[in-house]
């Protein structure tokens, strides 16, 4: 845990989720990854963005879960959806068909060019740690209009070079999207428990644009596996409001009750 939260009535995790939620504008169509992105997207829906459209790769379109799904295909997602389509249709018509404004992803590793690794740590043929793999991310990252990424900040997750590019941000040299037709903008912001980062408009290297309250640039650098750049005018992220915290905590409480109730 960071120092940040010591004098605050919210945790750094809550700060991250609230900040990630705020990134989603009302009316946006969002393809939601499970876990942190799902938590943030549903918080957005329950606060400032009641008309955000949440789509999960299980085929559930415009879903309004009362509790957070544990899996990407919980019954709750289908029961509260406008409609549920097949998985091939989801990936073909809705994602590849260009209907998604924002893809919201988590990851295990990320590098300075926002390349994501969810495949393995170590070498492919003899991995140190085998991770779950690509899932929906490789095509969410290229076929959504833009991509938001949220994850906890540490030198384990923010690495100089990802061991494997499961999902391209901007490629090993930052130029991976150049000249590719019909490709989305790619990652436009990364939200962690310490700060908010955006890719440099030209080089695509991640730049810290906003520090969460109480977090120092040094803390960010210590938690990052490369020499990270900071914007010239570094902002301070707005604190969570009492309402946001209340809604988020209620949501997580409802979720915990639902998932242990059986």
């Amino acid at each position, binding site marked *: 845990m960071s120092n940040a939260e010591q004098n605050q009535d919210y945790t750094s995790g809550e700060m991250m989720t609230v900040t990630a939620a705020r990134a989603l504008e009302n009316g946006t169509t969002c393809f939601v990854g*499970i*876990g942190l992105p799902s938590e943030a997207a549903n918080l957005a829906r329950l606060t400032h963005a009641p008309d955000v459209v949440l789509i999960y*790769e*299980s*085929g*559930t379109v415009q879903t309004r879960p009362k509790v957070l*799904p*544990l*899996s*990407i*295909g*919980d*019954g709750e*997602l*289908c*029961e509260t959806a406008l409609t*549920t*389509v*097949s*998985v*091939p249709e*989801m*990936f*073909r018509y809705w*994602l*590849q068909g260009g209907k998604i404004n924002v893809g919201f992803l988590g990851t295990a590793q990320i590098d300075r060019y926002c*390349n994501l690794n969810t*495949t393995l740590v170590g070498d*492919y043929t*003899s*991995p140190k740690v*085998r*991770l*779950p*793999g*690509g*899932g*929906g*991310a*490789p*095509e969410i990252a*290229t*076929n959504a209009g833009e991509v938001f990424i949220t994850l906890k900040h540490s030198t384990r997750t923010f690495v100089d070079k990802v061991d*494997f*590019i*499961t*999902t*391209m941000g901007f*490629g090993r040299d930052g130029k*991976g*999207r150049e000249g*590719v*037709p*019909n*490709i989305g903008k790619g990652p436009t912001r990364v939200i962690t428990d310490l700060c908010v980062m955006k890719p440099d408009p030209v080089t695509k290297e991640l730049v810290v644009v906003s520090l969460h309250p109480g977090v120092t640039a040094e803390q960010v650098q210590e938690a990052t596996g490369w020499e990270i750049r900071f914007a010239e005018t570094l902002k301070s992220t707005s604190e969570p409001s009492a309402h946001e915290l209340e809604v988020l905590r209620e949501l997580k409480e409802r979720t915990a009750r*639902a*998932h*242990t109730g*059986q």
Partner: protein
Amino acid sequence: MANVLSLQEAVAMYVQDGATVCMEGFTHLIPFSAGHEVIRQKKRDLTLIRMTPDLVYDQLIGAGCAKKVIFSWGGNPGVGSLHRLRDAVEKGWPHQVEILEHSHAAMACAFEAGAAGLPLAVLRGYVGSELPNVNDQIKFIECPFTSERLAAVPSVRPDVSIVHAQKADRAGNVLVEGIVGVQKEAVLAAKHSIVTVEEIVDDLDTHPNACVIPGWAIDAIAVSEKGSLPSYAHGYYPRNNSFYKEWDAIARDRDAFTQWINDNVMQAGGNVG
């Protein structure tokens, strides 16, 4: 035309050692009881296809049924790793298992293409990903109209597909409702198919555009009440999320796993979770 068989008969008849087998169900309607029957019958050297291996393949892999796994996301959803999959890939227990991995989009398209009788699926996929470096089944073609570079993967065409569904009528027509995943595609793409159902009814009592698989497109129907637990069946019972969490500890340890399989699968007739 679908024959109504016992699950034991259906698996014995259609799942051969060395076969390419697909058990589908995207989180929902995972055919656990059928997977357990495959374990009980000690099928070996299977090539297992599934977008999300989930606990069902973790169990099959740990029980020694798998030679190869083709998948696109191999975790315990919302919980963590599939420890039996990892142990097989990383340490070769109970034996080395080969993997071939795709993205979800590619596998979804490959199922669609298999159902559509095509040898390949074409998609806007894998741009910038290193998966094509480790999967020689991912190729790229050029669109003859626009010259765009598009990914191509072979279609999924299993020897046998197994899915679970809510209900069948007496003619073997099957209703799948809720999160339908790639189940219909899995059945239509396969040479043979087994569908386990919660119940057989007189009338599917459905609507004009429901996801119904006709009986003549299925080989065997087997009644298996609660056949997808700890997954779920929309309209019948919810997902046992607690069991998914408990599985983490069971699967972490080889002995605990073996004991669990012995107690709950080998010594049991039905499904558990």
